[in-house]
């Protein structure tokens, strides 16, 4: 059973389009995240939702809008895609503990290429 799954795995689209990436976790975790990994492999957190509430929102353009319909799902919608949005987007989940976010369980990633 896949613990954290993302769809699609690959996404090629034109500049200016709007696209969505979906994420689901079956680990029973209470917190989900979106990360962006650029071509230099730098992994940077974008958003975090705890029990469906947004708790971390790093400096991300407002063209990016996360939505969490329930604790097991966190989707990412991107409006007006730009060339610089090309990257690998990882979804992750964890069980938030007293010491912080806890172990991150990552999905396989969505490779987005904007042409």
């Amino acid at each position: 059973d896949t613990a954290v799954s993302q769809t699609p795995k690959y996404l090629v689209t034109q500049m200016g389009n709007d696209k969505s990436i979906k994420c689901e976790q079956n680990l029973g975790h209470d917190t989900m995240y979106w990360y962006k990994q650029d071509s230099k492999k730098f992994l940077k957190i974008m958003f975090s939702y705890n029990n469906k509430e947004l708790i971390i929102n790093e400096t991300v353009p407002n063209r990016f809008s996360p939505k969490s319909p329930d604790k097991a799902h966190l989707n990412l919608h991107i409006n007006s895609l730009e060339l610089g949005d090309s990257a690998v987007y990882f979804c992750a989940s964890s069980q938030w503990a007293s010491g912080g976010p806890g172990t991150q369980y990552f999905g396989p990633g969505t490779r987005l290429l904007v042409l």
Partner: protein
Amino acid sequence: TQLLEQSPQFLSIQEGENLTVYCNSSSVFSSLQWYRQEPGEGPVLLVTVVTGGEVKKLKRLTFQFGDARKDSSLHITAAQPGDTGLYLCAGSDDKIIFGKGTRLHILP
């Protein structure tokens, strides 16, 4: 702003050699994690260290958390081609931040 600096950025060594990767910060973390990422996949947790001075071993991998909980090291003994990958450290407090990673390549 919290930052985690990893060094070296790239390391290519022969099979059988030993190596150490470092993760340094000026910030104190409640815990520090090490992940390994292989091409085309997401990072996978190797270990979490919580206590200052803590040492954890995972087969040929030895992880140490600094006494002040600001830095950590990963030592690999007798590296194998299967150790090849991107090693990421991540500091956790009220949020989690990742270092830029060390790309390790073990030559057979």
